[in-house]
């Protein structure tokens, strides 16, 4: 992989649970526990999982909004975690994020000019007329009228606000954009528009996306590669067609079965996963999914499965896949 833009190796992020005398850490929340993957330039990685599985923590660490516990991240050939402040700041230009909820992520007291213009002011030393023109260009790029520059966020609808957030993320022409559930709080029609916009922008600007979503139809539509997370671990990873077409991990299968689609007829055709996500403080022994897995056997309780290569970059961590693959050979 010559042009891999992002290399993540064994990334861990533990949060301390403090208590007792002098607030010593008494336990650790293993939010991200050994995640490894690579991304190529121009690719869309879909990050899937239930809430609380560590998706957001993972990208926060990737963007160095949180300090990692251990692991390595190489972005564009640069080691993100061993970098002085000055060069980190320069690198940040290329790493941007669009947050989940456009009602919280835009400062209600600032004009759109200042919201979208702030990164430009900080990095490109641009102000006055020039800034207004630049922000206007950005708004046009995301399909908003130019006169929006002197408006406040409350004057826009949810979908339009998300466009403003996208304009802000693109203000410095980044290389990698993280989209943290960009359409989860807006309705289906606005969602369709935003997805189209993101696709067009990716093509015209050569962007690379990490798309977090729990809506698998969105991920299927956008992503080239899919990573499924459960309790801080990656359980399945591979090209989107393989993950959808030859789903290997029981958790991924369960996620797919839970979604009602247009072809769903009757409530009995959607399936639920029993129970809820266990606590990340004391994750279950062995395979972390064994408490809810329909196929769990004794081995799952004792031994943690390793990622098994299924060919074509498709990997999954489950004891039974390994066996099936072997017997098939």
């Amino acid at each position, binding site marked *: 992989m010559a042009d891999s833009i992002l290399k993540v190796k064994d990334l861990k992020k533990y949060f301390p649970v403090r208590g007792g005398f002098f607030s010593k850490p008494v336990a650790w929340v293993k939010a991200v526990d050994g995640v490894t993957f690579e991304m190529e330039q121009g690719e869309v990685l879909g990050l899937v999982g239930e809430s609380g599985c560590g998706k957001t923590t993972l990208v926060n660490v990737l963007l160095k909004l949180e300090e990692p516990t251990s692991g390595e991240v190489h972005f564009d050939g640069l080691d993100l975690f061993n970098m002085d402040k000055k060069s980190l700041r320069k690198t940040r230009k290329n790493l941007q994020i669009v947050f989940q909820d456009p009602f919280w992520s835009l400062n209600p007291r600032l004009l759109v000019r200042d919201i979208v213009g702030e990164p430009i002011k900080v990095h490109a030393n641009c102000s006055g007329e020039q800034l207004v023109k630049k922000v206007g260009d950005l708004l046009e790029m995301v399909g908003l009228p130019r006169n929006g520059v002197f408006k406040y966020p409350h004057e826009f609808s949810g979908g339009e606000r998300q466009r403003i957030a996208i304009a802000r993320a693109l203000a410095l022409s980044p290389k990698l954009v993280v989209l943290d559930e960009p359409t989860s709080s807006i309705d289906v029609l606005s969602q369709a528009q935003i997805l*189209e916009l993101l696709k067009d922008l990716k093509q015209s600007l050569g962007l690379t996306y990490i798309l977090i979503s729990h809506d698998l139809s969105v991920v299927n539509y956008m992503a080239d590669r899919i990573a499924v997370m459960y309790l801080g671990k990656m359980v399945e990873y591979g090209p989107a067609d393989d993950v959808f077409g030859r789903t290997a991990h029981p958790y991924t299968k369960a996620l797919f079965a839970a979604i*009602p689609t247009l072809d769903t007829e009757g409530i009995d055709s959607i399936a639920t996963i029993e129970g809820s996500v266990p606590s990340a403080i004391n994750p279950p022994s062995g395979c972390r999914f064994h408490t809810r897995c329909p196929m769990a056997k004794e081995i799952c309780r004792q031994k943690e499965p390793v990622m098994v290569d299924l060919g074509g970059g498709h990997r999954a961590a489950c004891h039974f896949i390994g066996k099936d693959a072997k017997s098939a050979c």
Partner: protein
Amino acid sequence: MGEYFKIKELRVGFKTFEGQKNVLDIDTMVLNKGETFGIVGESGAGKTVLALTILRLLSSPPSVIESGSILFNGEDLLQKPESEMRKIRGRHISMIFQDPMSTLNPVFTVGEQIIRVFRNNKRISRKEAEKEALGMIEMVKLPDAKNIMGKYPHELSGGQRQRIVIAIALSCGAEFLIADEPTRNLDVTIQAGILKLIAELQRELGVTVLFIANNLGLVSAICKRVAILNAGRIVETGSVREVLKDPRHPYTLTLLNAIPRNKGERVNRVNTIIKEERDRDLRGCRYYSRCMEKQEICRDSEPTSGLILGTHWVACHRAFEGGEPGGGQHTEG
């Protein structure tokens, strides 16, 4: 047997500085006892206004009920005095609100909140109310009900909170339940659980459910019949199968196409037209400004509902043009 629940020529408007604006204009809508009926539309279509109108929870000054009737068990809810409405809310008609984060009171335990509903509606002792509340929590399938009773809303997850909200809604034996996007902001796995719970309760208790959603996928999983709402009007209605398999109104098609399915296909481009304010002087179809198949007649006269087949009704001029209604060429996609 007569109709259980029927809305007739309901018009609701909001007073604004620019004059009164019509937000809801429903000619007829009938629900049979024990069924699950879906209402689908984008935000701003009037779904929640409809729910609040049924419960008479819309505050008026801004809202004005211009005309119409809502018949529930043969009685018109719109004619009832407030004192009688209070007896209907909760005991006969109840509602699950959209956001379980903000519908529960953060300073009381969830047990206390259910107990209060009982104490307000029935003359029973606190002990008895506690017992009943425990039963309700068990009914919505939350494990370890005793423990949950003593918890505050912030200690529960989104799915657990929504279950508590459902327990409260059903605690006084309501027979008609309005569910306003009950799974919005919930994870897919949690969503599946809540949908199953609603379907099960409906089967066991025989409640009638008005299910509001903005996603047709949800509706196809839980409802038998559906109505598509656009700008306050029902543009298409019928059984879920009729409407989803053979959509005739361009707006229904837009909604269907907006759901991303396959990678190759583009999601619908039609709706990149930003929603325009409806011209108040416009006499024609309310979807006119965004419709891709508009014609002259659409601007001048508002289409009335016409029957396609069975129970499938559509309000679109194009649907009845010639022998073969407008939907013909779309069904392949």
